[in-house]
C-alpha cells in the first residue's frame, strides 16, 4: 500500500504577513499543496494522509470547495483528513454540511473512529480536535481488533497541551504506521513507524531546513513499512546567517559579504541575519540596502562598539569620561547586564562626541 503523508499545511496562512513577500509565501503554500496532490497522482498513491492543521484557521465553505476540487483530481487516492488544534472543528463549522467527493474521508468525531478500505485492506484510525487543546493522550486507548488489515493511526499533537505522547508510547502502539502531525519540522520519531512529516512549507523564521512530505510503501502481506522517504517540496527556506565583525569591518564590506552569501545560497530564500563581535565605535552598520534587495526577515545587531575602556580611563582620569567609566565598573567583578552595557556605550559615545575638540553630534 503506497501512501503520501503530510500535515500542518496551514492552507490560508500568510507567513511573514507584514513583509512584502508575505503574499508570495501564502501562494507558495497553495502551490506546494497542489504539488503534493500531483505527486500523489504520479506515484499512484493509495492513500494521502493529512494529519491535522490542513487549514490555518477554521475553514470557510469556499476553502473546502477549493480543496475538494483538488481532491477530485486524484479520484483513485483515498484522502484521509483529521483536524488539528489550529483548524479544530467548532459547532458552526462548514464541515458539518459539506459534501466531499467520494475519495475523501474527513474524521469529524472527537472520539477515535476508523474507516476501512477494502480495496487496499487498510483500516485507518483517527479523530479530530474540537477545541484548541486536548490534555488527554487518547491514542493509547484505541484498540484495533482485526490484525489482518493494515492498521494506520493518524494523530495530531505530542506536547503537554495537545494529546501528550512520546516516542516510547508510540513504539508500543499496535499500528503498522502512525501518521503524526503538529511539529513543523520533519522527524522520524520511531524508525519506520511514527513520523512527523513537518509542514510542506516553512511557516516562520525559526523553521529552517528542508520542508516537504513523506512517502512510503507498506507490504500488503507482512504489513511492514518497506520504504519510507522524505521528499522536499518547498523551494524556499529560511536561512540564518551570522557574521562576526571586527574593528576594521566597514559597512560596505559587511554589505558585500552578506550580499555574496545571499546570492550564493539563493536570493529567493528568506534570511535572518545576526551580527556579532566588536565594531569600531564610529562605524554604524546600515543594512537597509540589503533589506531592499533581498528577503531579510530579521537583522539582529548584537555587535558592540570596541572601546578600550582602560586606555580611555587613563586618558581621562579626572573628567566625566573617566568618572563615567568608573561608575560602570562593578566592584564585585560581575558582568554588566545588557542594559548597563548599552548605557555605558551610549554614554561614552555621547561624551566622546561632545567633548571639546570632538565632533558635535
Amino acid at each position, binding site marked *: 500500500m503506497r501512501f503520501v503523508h503530510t500535515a500542518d499545511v496551514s492552507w490560508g496562512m500568510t507567513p511573514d*504577513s507584514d513583509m512584502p513577500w508575505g503574499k508570495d509565501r501564502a501562494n507558495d503554500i497553495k502551490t506546494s499543496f497542489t504539488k503534493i496532490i500531483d505527486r500523489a497522482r504520479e506515484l499512484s498513491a493509495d492513500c494521502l494522509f493529512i494529519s491535522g492543521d490542513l487549514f490555518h484557521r477554521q475553514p470557510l*465553505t469556499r476553502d473546502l470547495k477549493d480543496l475538494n476540487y483538488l481532491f477530485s483530481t486524484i479520484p483513485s487516492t483515498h484522502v484521509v483528513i483529521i483536524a488539528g488544534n489550529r483548524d479544530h472543528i467548532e459547532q458552526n463549522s462548514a464541515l*458539518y454540511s459539506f459534501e466531499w467527493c467520494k475519495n475523501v474521508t474527513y474524521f469529524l468525531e472527537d472520539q477515535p473512529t476508523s474507516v476501512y478500505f477494502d480495496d487496499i485492506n487498510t483500516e485507518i484510525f483517527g479523530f479530530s480536535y474540537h477545541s484548541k487543546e486536548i490534555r488527554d493522550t487518547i491514542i493509547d486507548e484505541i484498540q484495533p481488533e482485526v490484525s489482518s488489515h493494515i492498521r494506520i493511526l493518524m494523530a495530531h499533537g505530542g506536547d503537554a497541551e495537545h494529546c501528550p505522547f512520546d516516542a516510547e508510547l508510540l513504539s508500543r502502539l499496535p499500528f503498522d504506521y502512525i501518521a503524526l502531525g503538529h511539529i513543523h519540522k520533519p522527524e522520524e520519531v520511531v524508525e519506520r513507524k511514527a513520523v512527523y512529516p513537518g509542514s510542506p512549507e516553512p511557516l516562520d523564521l525559526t523553521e529552517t531546513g528542508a520542508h516537504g512530505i513523506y512517502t512510503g510503501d507498506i507490504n500488503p502481506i507482512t504489513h511492514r513499512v518497506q520504504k519510507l522517504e522524505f521528499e522536499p517540496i518547498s523551494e524556499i527556506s529560511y536561512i540564518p546567517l551570522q557574521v562576526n565583525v571586527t574593528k576594521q569591518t566597514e559597512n560596505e564590506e559587511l554589505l558585500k559579504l552578506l550580499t555574496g552569501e545571499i546570492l550564493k545560497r539563493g536570493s529567493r530564500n528568506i534570511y535572518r541575519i545576526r551580527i556579532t563581535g566588536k565594531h569600531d565605535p564610529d562605524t554604524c552598520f546600515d543594512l537597509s540596502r540589503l533589506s531592499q534587495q533581498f528577503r531579510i526577515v530579521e537583522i539582529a545587531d548584537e555587535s558592540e562598539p570596541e572601546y578600550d575602556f582602560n586606555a580611555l580611563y587613563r586618558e581621562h582620569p579626572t573628567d*566625566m569620561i573617566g568618572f*563615567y567609566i568608573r*561608575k560602570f565598573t562593578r566592584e564585585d567583578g560581575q558582568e554588566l547586564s545588557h542594559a548597563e552595557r*548599552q548605557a555605558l556605550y551610549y*554614554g561614552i559615545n555621547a561624551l566622546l562626541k561632545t567633548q571639546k575638540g570632538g565632533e558635535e553630534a
Partner: protein
Amino acid sequence: MKILDLTIHGFGKFHDRKLSFTDGLNIIYGHNEAGKSTLHSFLRAMLYGMEKKPGLTKKSELYEKYKPWDNADVFGGELRFSWQSKTYRVMRDFRKDHESLRIINETDQTELREPEALLTDALDGVTETAYNNTVSIGQLKCQTGREMARELKSYIQSIHTTGDANLNAERAISYLRNQKNTMEQRLVPDAARTYTALIGEIRNIERDISQPSYANQLNKYNELRNSARTERTSRQTRKEELLQKIAQSEQVLQQSGYKNEAEISAAQEKTGSLYKSFEESVKESKKAVRIILPVMLLGLSALSLMFGVAAVLLTGSSGMSGWQTLLPGVSAALSHMRLPVVLAVSLLLCILFLAAGITTLRQNHMIRKRVEETSAQAKEILARQIGCSDLSEDAMHALHSHMEELKNVYHQLTDNRTELAALDEELGKLTEDERAYDSKLQHQHEMQTELEGKLEHLANIKNRAEQLQRTLSENDHITEELDAISLAMETMSDLSKSIHSSFGHYLNKEAGSLISGITGGAYDSMWIDNSLRVYLNTPDKLVPIEHVSSGTMDQIYLALRLAASQLLQTGSSEKLPLIFDDSFAMYDEDRLRTAIHFVMQEYPGQILLFTCHTREARILEEDHTAFHLIRL
C-alpha cells in the same frame, strides 16, 4: 592670548596713557592710589565690556567709578593683543549712548565684522565670572580664619558654575536626549493599544460565533425536509390517483343520471315495478276476457238497443207479427211487459251495457296505455342504462346487474372521497411541515452566510494582530534601547551633581601638587569633602582649614585659583595672561619668594603682577630672574 599693550584714552584717573607688556612676568608697580586697580578694571573692561551683566556690580557703579574726571567726552581706550599668530587691536568707547567695540586684525589689515565673537574665542570661552574667579587673582579679602575659609568655600562653589567643560555633562546629556528623541520616533505608540483592541475584538467575535444559533444543522433540516417532501409526493400521487378514480366514478354516475345510491335504488325499484306493472298489464291485456268482454258488452248493448227498437217496432202491431214468428219468446215476453217499461229497460240496459262496454273498452285502452307507458318508461330506462330497449327478463337482469354495479361505483366513490379528504388533511400538514423546514433551512443558510462573513472578518483581524506582533516586539526592543539611553543620561546627570559636590576630588589632583609646591612641602594636598569642609594634608594628619594661618590660607587660595585657571584652559595652547592684583601683600619674604617662583614655573603664559611693593621686583632681581617692570 598675550597682551601687547594698553592705551587708555580716558578711564578713571588715566588719560592718554600707554603701557606695554612682554612675555613672561610683568610687574606693574605703583604705590597705593597709583591706579593699579583702575588699570586692572580697565583691562577687564576692555576684554569684557562694561555692560551690565547679571550678578555683577551695576553698570552705573562701574560707570560712575571710572568715568574720567576731567574729560567726560573721552571714555575708552585700546588694547592690543596677539592670538594665534595674529595681532589684534581692540578699540572701545565706554560713553553712554556711544558704546562701541571695534577690533582690527592688524596682521591681515582687516576690521572684524563680529568683534564679540573673536573676543569670546580669544578668551577661550572664559566668561567674566570665570575670569574674576580664576585668571584675575586678587587677595582674599577677609582676614579671619573662619571668614577666609568661608570665602574659600564660596569661591569653590562659584567655580562650580564656571566648571571645566570637560566635566560638564550638559552637552553629552543633550546629545543623548537627541538620540533618545530620534529613537522615540521609531516607536509605534498605538501598537500596543491597537493590539489589545484587536485581541478584544477577536475574543468578542469568537464568543459570538460559538453561539448555538450558528451551529451547523443544515444536514439535519435538509433530511427532515426531504423526508417530508417524499411523503408529500407519495401522498400527492395517491391523491392524483384518487382524483382520477373519483372523476371516473362521477362521470359514470353522471352518465347514469343518478346522484346517489338512494336514487339508484329508487330507480331500480321503479323499473322493477314498471316492469311488473307492464307484465301485469300485458298479461291483463292479453286476457281473453279483455276482448270478449267489451265485445260482449257492446253486443249486449246493441242487443238491448235492438230489443228496445224491436219492442217499439213490435208494438207497432204490424211489425209484431213478423217478429212473432221470429222471436216468439221475445214477443211473448214483450207482450207481457208494458212497452215504455220495456223501452226504458231496454234503453237502460243498452246504456248500461254500452257504458260497461265503453268502460271495458276504456279499461282496455287504459291497460294498453299503461302497457305502452310502462313499456316506454321501462324501455327508456333500459335504453339509458344498458343500451338495449328490449323489455325482457334478460334485459331486466341486465339492468339489475347494471344497477348493482352502479351502486358499487357509488360506494367506491364515497370511499374514495373519504380517503381523499383524509389525504388532503395529511397533505396540508405535510406541506406546512415542509414549509417550516424550508424556512428553517433558509434561516440556517442565512446564519451560515452570516457566519462565513464573520469568520472572514475574524481572519482579517487575526492577520492584523499577527502583523502587529512584529511591531510590538520591535517596540520592545526600541524601549530597551531607550531605557539604556535613559540610564546613561541619569548616570551622567547624577555623576555631574556628585562631581560638583565633591569637587574636591578633582580639585585635589590639580591643586595637590600646586599646594605642595606653593607651601614648600608643608602641606601635601588638600581635601574638600561633600559639605565643602576643607582639609589640608600633612604627612601625619588632616588639618581643617580653619586651623591654618592666614598666610597659609592665602597660599591655598592662590593654589586653588591657579589650579582652577589651569583646569579652565586645559585644552588650549595659548593661555590667558594670569593677573595678580596685590595678591602677595600678606606674604612674608620666604613665602613670597616661593610663591613667585612657583607661579612662574607652573604657569607658562604671560603674568601681570600688580603690586604696591618693591619686594617682588627685588626678590626676582636677587634671584636673577627675568621680568619686565612697569612703573605707574
